[in-house]
């Protein structure tokens, strides 16, 4: 039951295309917006920072949420808290340290160089698949040491599962998501079987070794593999595609990136602020919590609006404009989340994006649109499907 559907019109096509005017009104007039009898929405930066790490906030869903497709990976870092969460996270953390990531992104560089061979004589390339998906997907496969093939079907089925996370997901979306999970679980089970036949020294081997030592369960290994396998590409690919798309609209930023290597990290951070792949996420209350004078009962759902928070004018001056010279708090966007549940892949994502963009911009001085991008965005997640570009040396 929406209290006022006009304030947060999930599913509305204009809202999905550009939700920021609605976010701005919520920030100004309804910083704590009651979406329905169980769910509250937070859009201000200050509230996000105060409450996202509140000790009463949990990622573990209460019973009233009921069953849904994403319960399929509830035995991962995305469905656990406390000691179990720390135990699971530590098995993967050591594979994504800044030092190791420098090694992993050599694969992204190799694939980017390979992909640029597909640029035709007129400079045309479908950039989303070749330059956004492939470098990040193959890199993750090589970290895991699993089969790199069947990319298109992996991406198609990943898009199927994320559709079920929309606040307006229908039973049809959920059924589609179950199909996606079935496909991905099938792939992952086959990878584990292949590893048992022919072990290596990748992340999946380490997970299986931990299982054999009793540190992880069979279920945890399978679900963790699936989480890393499908999440390797979509979010880095969206960020990369958003930046390349942005370069077509503001070519001076490409020049800035190309000519100022020392500013690349800050530029990428600012692009990530503007273009979070995941627009929001939810947490649940383990006890009553008061926010803006309103007592939210235990079990309530809080939706944290990442994309709104990243453009809160109280923190980010001219929030819709690109400005990589923002300092201090203004550089602290929340696209990767904060606290214990912040994105485990943020270091490798930033490094992949910088690697791919650096190779492209060192070879090409200008990028033009070669056709309307094809996107698939709902109320929670953003994706490109196709990004036709023309690269000019």
């Amino acid at each position, binding site marked *: 039951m929406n209290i006022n559907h006009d304030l947060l019109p999930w599913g509305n096509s204009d809202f999905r295309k550009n939700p920021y005017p609605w976010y701005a009104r919520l920030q100004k007039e309804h910083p704590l917006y009651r979406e329905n009898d169980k769910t509250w929405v937070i859009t201000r930066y200050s509230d996000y*920072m105060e409450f996202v*790490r509140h000790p009463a906030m949990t990622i573990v869903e209460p019973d009233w949420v009921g069953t849904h497709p994403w319960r399929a990976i509830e035995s991962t870092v995305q469905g656990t808290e406390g000691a179990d969460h*720390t135990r699971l996270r*530590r098995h993967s*953390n*050591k594979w*994504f*340290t*800044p*030092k*190791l990531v420098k090694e992993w992104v050599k694969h992204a560089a190799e694939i980017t160089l390979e992909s640029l061979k597909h640029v035709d004589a007129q400079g045309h390339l479908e950039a989303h698949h070749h330059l956004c998906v492939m470098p990040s997907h193959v890199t993750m496969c090589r970290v895991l040491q699993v089969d790199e093939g069947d990319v298109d079907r992996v991406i198609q089925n990943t898009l199927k599962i994320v559709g079920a996370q929309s606040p307006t997901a229908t039973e049809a979306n959920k059924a589609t998501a179950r199909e996606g999970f079935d496909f991905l679980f099938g792939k992952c089970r086959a990878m584990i079987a292949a590893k048992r036949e022919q072990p290596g020294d990748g992340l999946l081997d380490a997970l299986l070794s931990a299982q054999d030592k009793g540190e992880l369960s069979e279920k945890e290994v399978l679900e963790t593999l699936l989480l890393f396998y499908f999440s390797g590409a979509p979010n880095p690919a969206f960020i990369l595609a958003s930046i390349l798309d942005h370069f077509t609209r503001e070519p001076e930023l490409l020049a800035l990136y190309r000519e100022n290597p020392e500013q690349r*990290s800050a530029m990428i951070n600012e692009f990530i602020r503007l273009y979070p792949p995941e627009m929001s996420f939810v947490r649940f209350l383990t006890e009553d919590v008061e926010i803006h004078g309103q007592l939210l009962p235990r079990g309530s759902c809080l939706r944290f609006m990442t994309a709104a928070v990243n453009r809160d004018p109280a923190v980010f001056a001219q929030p819709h404009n690109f400005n990589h010279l923002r*300092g*201090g*708090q*203004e*550089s*602290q966007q929340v696209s990767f989340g*904060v606290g*214990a549940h912040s994105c485990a892949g943020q*270091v490798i994502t930033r490094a992949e994006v910088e690697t791919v963009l650096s190779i492209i911009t060192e070879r090409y001085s200008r990028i033009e649109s070669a056709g309307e991008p094809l996107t698939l965005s709902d109320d929670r997640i953003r994706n490109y499907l196709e990004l036709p570009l023309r690269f000019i040396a």
Partner: protein
Amino acid sequence: MSSYKILFGTESGNAEVIADDIVDALSTKGLQAVAIPMDEYAVDDLSPGERYVFITSTYGEGELPETTQPFFEALNGLESLAGVEFFAFGLGDSTYTNYNRAIHVLIDSLQDLGAKLIGTIGKHDGNSGVSLSSAAHTWISQSF
């Protein structure tokens, strides 16, 4: 020639970045230095003949990170670190209540055993917008 052992404890690898930066900076000054994960260094080997830099992040709500914890616990088995001198650098996030608690917990334990802290404690604030390497180099230039 002074020799430095840069012992780092980490959860996600950021302390390792600081450790490597310190090794590089000291090497350019002609000083010998090596970075060693804290959980791979035996506390019994702590010696007045060496110089140390202890680096640790803070995990969660003020806890010690995965590879600092076993080293810290092993310190309890020592009787004295008299004569040992060390620098210290902590990584934290000032939006947390127990900002950079872990490095202070470690320093207290080392000092209780008679080791001597040299210079100012270096710190990186994950909420500052300052990069790890930038924070490390500022502290290195002030400390060495």
